[in-house]
């Protein structure tokens, strides 16, 4: 990191191989994080869709038709929703903190 700051402070210095490699790595890292941010909507939305689908299926085929066989789908849907939201919230918050810092 000291190296990186050195490069920032003295932009005119000639970089050696390891310095170049470090900068390249830093570039890769920011690229990967960008890819991760692009992937986030899918990462968050799909489990929620699956959870809601299970709850909807319980409602449509279980509750409305008075069939208790679908109760498992309700519990499963709630577990998937709660489990995912519990991890999505801190993840999105950390992404926001990161983007604010950037």
């Amino acid at each position, binding site marked *: 990191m000291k190296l990186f700051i050195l490069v920032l402070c003295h932009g005119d210095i000639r970089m050696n191989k390891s310095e170049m490699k470090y900068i390249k790595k830093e570039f890769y890292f920011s690229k990967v994080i960008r890819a991760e941010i692009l992937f986030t909507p899918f*990462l968050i939305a799909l489990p929620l869709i699956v959870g809601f689908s299970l709850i909807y299926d319980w409602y449509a085929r279980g509750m409305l038709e008075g069939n208790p066989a679908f109760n498992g789908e309700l519990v*499963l849907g709630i577990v*998937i929703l709660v489990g995912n939201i519990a991890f999505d919230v801190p993840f999105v918050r950390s992404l926001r903190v990161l983007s604010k810092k950037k």
Partner: protein
Amino acid sequence: MVKVAERLRDTKKKINSLDFDAHWYRRTFHAFGASFLVYYILPDVDWINILKFWVPPFIVVFVIILEVLRLTGKISSDHFFGLRMYEKNRVGSYVFFAVAILILLRFFPQQIAIPCILCATLGDPIIGEIRQHFGMNYLFLFGFLVCMFFFMIAWFKSDILLFVLASIVGGFGAIIGETKKFWWLDDDFMIQMIPAFLLLIIWISIPYFGSGYPGEIIYPGTMPW
């Protein structure tokens, strides 16, 4: 000099935030795996059955090819965000995760596959958080209870004896799978396969208990048209 110190502090903060981000990214990625249960929701129609047969192995083969390219150095490990340090020179845990899910979806009844997948997707990150915040003392007890809950959901339609047996054996198998780590075999694989094989033994011996097989939890959906 003060400026350099300030910059150092700023950069250190940034790096720390990146680590934190990777941590939650891994957790979210785990929880995302629960969406593979969509496999059981899909309607029982010919063309969807073909998709159900081909898409999961296609995804796993794609992941394996990606991993081979990474390990042979054709793709830099730097492109894989959230990869752990020890995974740099061995097969990544996401490959084990995907292979285990494929085996469960393809070869196990859903009463076994669903709780085992939930153990890896939701149980594993919860256990990780317990380990981080409360230490190892609470890990076994709370981890066991969390995983047992998933097996209770899946076996609630069975007889009381089977319900209790499957829940305890499943929870026990999952916690053993989570805590036993090998360099060459990841816990993401073990947490799914150990309870799956233990429950398979129970599943095979159900007729000897004199009871019937528990009903399915997820029923295939119907086409809206």
